[in-house]
């Protein structure tokens, strides 16, 4: 009796170890291309599995999707790239490509040899995924950072729908009107991409310069952050939460804050969850100096990938007009392929989205990335709330982050 129990247990463990070893986790197997992507939910998983399916068809190999939540994704990638466990196809964000270019394969030769048509893509989106003139990833989406707003709240407060190109003064006037109705105007965040965009739009302050250097001590950054802190103090903006990257989205969706910074990729989710009508406009800038960043994501190939040709064939299919059109129809990603963009506008379901996007795209510049990008984001989440919430002077906090990055 005992013996049998023990034997069963031993067999179970043995079987488990065997399945563990061969359980599809190993990256090296030659008929599979592993593809890593940030995954937030089963819904995401389903959509991206579909995209992976097109890659599988084109490459003749299985594409196995490896997902982790966005917050952990970059840490995971950094522990994998350069080792045998690296995935073949790596999803990259434009602002983080510098950080990982060492572990990625330059795609230029493959682009040339396969006759890949780079011109079909938005030029800025392509450039944003290149480092020192070498292409490291093919973009699937792109988009300028925008300001989503609560149309109902704006209407209640008697504020006219903000037209693209509206100014900081317009925003402040709207904020005052909203406050009278008991509404907070802005949902703040300290997440790199959204904070950097808001600061840049406000006065052109850049936390990372175009060559990838950290320029937090640029006085304009502090000025713009103090402006946000002023809004928080004045109760026209929510307090930032460093531990919860989605606190701003929550505040917007549940109606606490009337505006939030986001990219076109956010629109699907906002529209689905909000119980009010969602509008979209450009980020508030000084009159005549409209600015915003654009950021996007794409697929690259790791240096250790045993079959770069197969991986590139998969990527080509995963960024084909057909695939990107279908993603656009879901409202999921604003396509980096110009031909697929019409599908997004048609399905966005937000009045004025096309006008706003065109206005923003015309002036958007790529959000620069730094080799220390992930550290910067980590430090912003830790220290950022103090400056955005006005507890410490922005100048001091930025200097502190800067000194920690300097090491």
């Amino acid at each position: 009796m005992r013996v049998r129990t023990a034997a069963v247990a031993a067999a179970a463990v043995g079987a488990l170890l065997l399945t563990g070893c061969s359980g599809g986790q190993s990256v090296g197997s030659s008929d599979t291309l592993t593809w890593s992507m940030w995954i937030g939910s089963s819904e995401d998983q389903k959509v991206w599995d579909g995209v992976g399916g097109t890659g599988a068809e084109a490459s003749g190999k299985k594409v196995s999707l490896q997902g982790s939540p966005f917050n952990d994704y970059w840490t995971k990638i950094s522990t994998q790239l350069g080792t045998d466990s690296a995935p073949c196809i790596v999803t990259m964000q434009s602002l983080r490509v510098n950080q990982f270019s060492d572990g990625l394969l330059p795609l230029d030769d493959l682009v040339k040899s396969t006759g890949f048509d780079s011109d079909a893509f938005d030029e800025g989106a392509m450039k944003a995924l290149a480092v020192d003139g070498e292409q490291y990833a093919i973009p699937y989406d792109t988009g300028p950072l925008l300001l989503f707003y609560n149309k109902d709240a704006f209407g209640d407060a008697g504020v006219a729908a903000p037209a693209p190109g509206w100014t900081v003064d317009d925003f402040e006037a709207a904020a005052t009107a909203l406050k009278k109705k008991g509404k907070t105007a802005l949902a703040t965040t300290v997440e790199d991409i959204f904070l950097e965009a808001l600061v840049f739009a406000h006065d052109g302050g850049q936390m990372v310069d175009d060559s990838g250097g950290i320029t937090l001590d640029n006085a304009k950054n502090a000025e713009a952050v103090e402006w946000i802190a002023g809004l928080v103090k004045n109760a026209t903006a929510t307090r930032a939460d460093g531990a919860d990257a989605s606190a701003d989205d929550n505040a917007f969706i549940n109606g606490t804050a009337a505006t939030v910074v986001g990219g076109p990729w956010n629109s699907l989710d906002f529209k689905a969850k909000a119980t009010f009508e969602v509008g979209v406009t450009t980020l508030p800038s000084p009159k005549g100096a409209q600015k915003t960043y654009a950021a996007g994501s794409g697929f690259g190939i790791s240096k250790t990938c045993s079959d770069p040709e197969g991986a590139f064939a998969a990527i080509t299919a995963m960024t084909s007009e057909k695939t990107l059109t279908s993603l656009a129809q879901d409202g999921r990603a604003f396509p980096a392929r110009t031909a697929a963009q019409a599908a997004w506008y048609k399905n966005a379901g937000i009045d004025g989205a096309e006008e706003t996007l065109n206005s923003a795209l015309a002036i958007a510049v790529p959000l620069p990335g730094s080799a220390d990008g992930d550290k910067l984001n980590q430090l912003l989440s830790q220290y950022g709330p103090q400056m955005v919430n006005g507890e410490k002077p922005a100048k001091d906090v930025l200097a502190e982050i800067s000194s920690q990055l300097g090491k």
Partner: protein
Amino acid sequence: MSDVISRGRGPRNLRSAVGYTLLVLVALLFMSPLIFMVGTSLKAPSEIFATPPALFGATLEWGNYAEVFSYAPFARYLVNGVVVAVSGTVITLAVSALSGYAFARLRWRGRTATFTVFLATMMLPQEVIIVPAFVLMRELGWINTYQALIIPWAFTALGAFLLRQFFVTVPRELEDASRIDGLGEFGTFFRIMLPLARPTLAVLAVFTFITYWNSFLWPLVVVNDVSSLGTIPLGLQQFFGQQGTQWHLIMAASVISMLPSTILLIALQRYLVRGIVTSGLGGR
């Protein structure tokens, strides 16, 4: 200040009634985060931050629990959690029973020294070796596998310590009797000793299971593919998505994640108390 063995009836009853009520209140206050968690897990998203706060929403949204499983591959996390915890526990029990027996009942060279080393590692926090253990996993090619989640922590010294403490107390006569019956060393261990150790093994099993089930830092480090290899604690994080924190789902998922340990605790609490006491598992 009451006398411990005061004989006065009336005032003492009153006092103890007051004391008991106070105790119930303290227990309720203590439980309030958990009660609140259950309440929130049954609310509609719009009611979560309602003022004034209410324990329960207007309707009980049992659908939240179903949504946990459709929003994220939570069933997969559960299965992974069980697979990892059960196999980890089985290995731990097997090696600990053997070594505990060797430390208690068998004489061999280097026994004391080995046992001292075992004891010393009990002071060693897992966190200290997280970086080298990760590098080791990478060398073994175990990153993102079940065995990385299971094997490295199946050999902690606690089990050997616990079982040794038990085996030391077994009377020698039993051993001699088994000798007379012609049982060898292994037979004695397997037929005589192991059945006796069942309660201790149960305690060790429960604690090992719970430790695996709740483990967070190690899976965070070695699992790359959370969607297919994630365990419950990693999965809980998933609900802090890019798309807005889903508090009602997080709370429902948390309730689910607490069920196995809660059930084990209630069912086996008497054994657990004994286990904690005899092993000095305290101080977590």
